[in-house]
């Protein structure tokens, strides 16, 4: 399954790991902030509607 | 315009801020360099052009936040904006005043400080020429940065962050002229590029600065 990376295994694997960590962090941060803002907005809109 | 220029110059002289401070900073930076890299004269003379350029750039940067902030605080910027003089002109005059109070002294001081750094003999002319051509660009670009951050409370650090990348081309070509000159190589090509950047910045950036200032004065 795992391809033979030869003497550069560390290099290739660390490059993939670093990139994937960065990509996942970017997506996760975006989604996290998006969720939070959406929830907050919903709460405020509900409150505004209740209070008129 | 001339009245405004004279007013700015007089204010700078009287307050003692920009005039002495930039120069003193330039001196300090230059003096600190041998302490940090060691006193070997061969090493110093090879890095002297770059150090002088970096020092001049930092000294310019340091004086930028006073460029518009004082006029902003006491409201004279609002008056200037409603004056018959177009804001582009005001901005250009401000940049010119900044250059006369900061850039010009730096140009004149550079050869003296060059002695401290063991600058090769043929480099003195080139460091003066390159700084004389480059510092106007630094002033104009800096005015743009100052106009961007004029409304902010603690704009100083942000100003540096914004202006530094904009200084990159000027620094590269300016330091290149000085370095090549000091090594006795042909420095005409980077000098023309440097002059081109300065001319372009002086011609175009005041419009951007004025536009930005209008937004901030809104």
């Amino acid at each position: 399954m795992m391809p033979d990376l030869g003497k550069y295994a560390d290099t290739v694997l660390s490059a993939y790991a670093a990139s994937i960590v960065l990509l996942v962090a970017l997506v996760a941060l975006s989604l996290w902030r998006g969720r939070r803002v959406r929830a907050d907005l919903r709460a405020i809109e509900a409150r505004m509607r209740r209070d008129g | 315009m001339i009245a405004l220029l004279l007013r700015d110059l007089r204010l700078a002289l009287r307050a003692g801020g920009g005039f002495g401070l930039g120069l003193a900073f330039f001196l300090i930076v230059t003096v600190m360099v041998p302490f940090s890299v060691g006193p070997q004269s061969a090493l110093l003379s090879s890095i002297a052009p770059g150090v002088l350029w970096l020092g001049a750039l930092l000294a310019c940067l340091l004086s930028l936040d006073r460029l518009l902030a004082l006029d902003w605080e006491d409201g004279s910027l609002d008056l200037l904006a409603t004056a018959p003089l177009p804001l582009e002109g005001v901005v250009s005059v401000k940049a010119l005043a900044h250059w006369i109070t900061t850039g010009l002294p730096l140009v004149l001081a550079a050869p003296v400080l060059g002695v401290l750094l063991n600058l090769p003999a043929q480099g003195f002319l080139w460091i003066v020429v390159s700084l004389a051509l480059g510092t106007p660009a630094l002033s104009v670009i800096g005015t743009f940065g100052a106009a961007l951050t004029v409304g902010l409370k603690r704009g100083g650090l942000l100003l540096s962050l914004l202006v530094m990348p904009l200084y990159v081309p000027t620094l590269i070509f300016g330091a290149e002229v000085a370095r090549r000159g000091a090594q006795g190589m042909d420095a005409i090509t980077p000098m023309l590029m440097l002059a081109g950047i300065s001319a372009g910045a002086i011609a175009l950036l005041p419009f951007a600065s004025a536009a930005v200032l209008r937004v901030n004065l809104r």
Partner: protein
Amino acid sequence: MSLWEYANPKKFLATSERVLPAFWALSGLCLVVGLVWGFFFTPDDFRQGSTVKIIYLHVPSALMAINAWLMMLVASLIWLVRRHHVSALAARAAAPVGVAMTLIALVTGAIWGQPMWGTWWAWDPRLTSFLILFLFYLGYIALWAAIDNPDTAADLTSVLCLVGSVFALLSRYAVNFWNQGLHQGASLSLDKEKNVADVFYQPLLVCIAGFVLLFVALVLYRTGTEIRARRMRALIARERAGAA
């Protein structure tokens, strides 16, 4: 708030909400297919060994780092000319994505450069330009974050983006010139795309498609977030005004 004020953002939200799942799915698919294909099923380069596999991350992210700035430039222009709020917010939303792409390109480049050139970092024109681009991104984001009034912030950052683009381009040429002057004949060039063989080229294309789609999805999503955040601020301000 009058209706026309957020008529467009509302439409934007509705439309982006509809197409976003497709973009997420497609980009995920392309990335997984492209990276798995590239990682497991391509041969090693005869000179570079297995490090050639880094190309599937390095080239797409570098491409997107530049294209993200271009997209911000276009969005800034639209904001300055048409005063289209969504456009300004899209530029804001794209900047952190651009930063991440620049970082990926720089990090993978450094990791790749270590065994190939024997150094993590060289002041090669391309590397240096990317570092400068990174600084431009940082300044742009910092300016957005520093200004309270959203319209002022949009105006100022747009002008900064325009001026910054010109200077970024200038820096690119300056850096080229500067490095030639420093060490002639340095052949540290990353431009191998032209002679990349088909075995590498096809998965690379899939990866690029994946990065582009991911960028679009992220920008759409983040723009939606910015629109909601803006609306929330307006509502809170109104609430305060009503309470006072």
